[in-house]
């Protein structure tokens, strides 16, 4: 996060699209667009 990049375990959505598939944090937010941020739910035995 300190380098300004998207944290691997945070999901950011612009208009219900995951920004990972829409240019990352450079994704454009249109006027009236919605931004949703969710913590990724992840883990595992290792």
């Amino acid at each position, binding site marked *: 996060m300190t380098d300004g990049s998207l944290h691997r375990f945070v999901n950011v*959505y612009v208009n219900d699209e995951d920004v990972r598939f829409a240019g990352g944090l450079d994704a454009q937010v249109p006027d009236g667009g919605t931004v949703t941020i969710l913590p990724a*739910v992840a883990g*595992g*035995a290792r």
Partner: protein
Amino acid sequence: MLVIRADLVEQMVAHARRDHPDEACGILAGPDDGSGRPERFVAMENAERSPTFYRFDSMEQLRVYQEMDRNDEVPVVVYHSHTATEPYPSRTDISLASEPFAHYVLIGTRDPEQHELRSYRIVDGDVAEEEVQVVENYMFAHTGSDDVPDPAPRA
């Protein structure tokens, strides 16, 4: 303590068995009223399809969380399986736990006959295991602090 209906346990265990040896994951949604009652089973896709790691598919997670918002629900339980190791939160589980109000349920499927099911609170890197009480329904279950003792739960 996690009080949980037997049918929800059965659905989680069946999901864990189905995806074994990959880890299975999902949530149990419940009303956002502080009752801590899991009501609705939602199996999630493990986007990693891995025997040692899980991650909710990000688009499925968005849909499910929006649906919970509309229903005034919260993820009361976040569950996943450990398919070869003890059902205790790993360092990864602990460092990525982001729901301090959720019960983290781990299902162990290393034994093909007998599953293991344990529940934890994970807050700021601290793990506390909690008792799990499986009930047929919530009517007679202890559901939180009150002034009147609840009748004994049915076995």
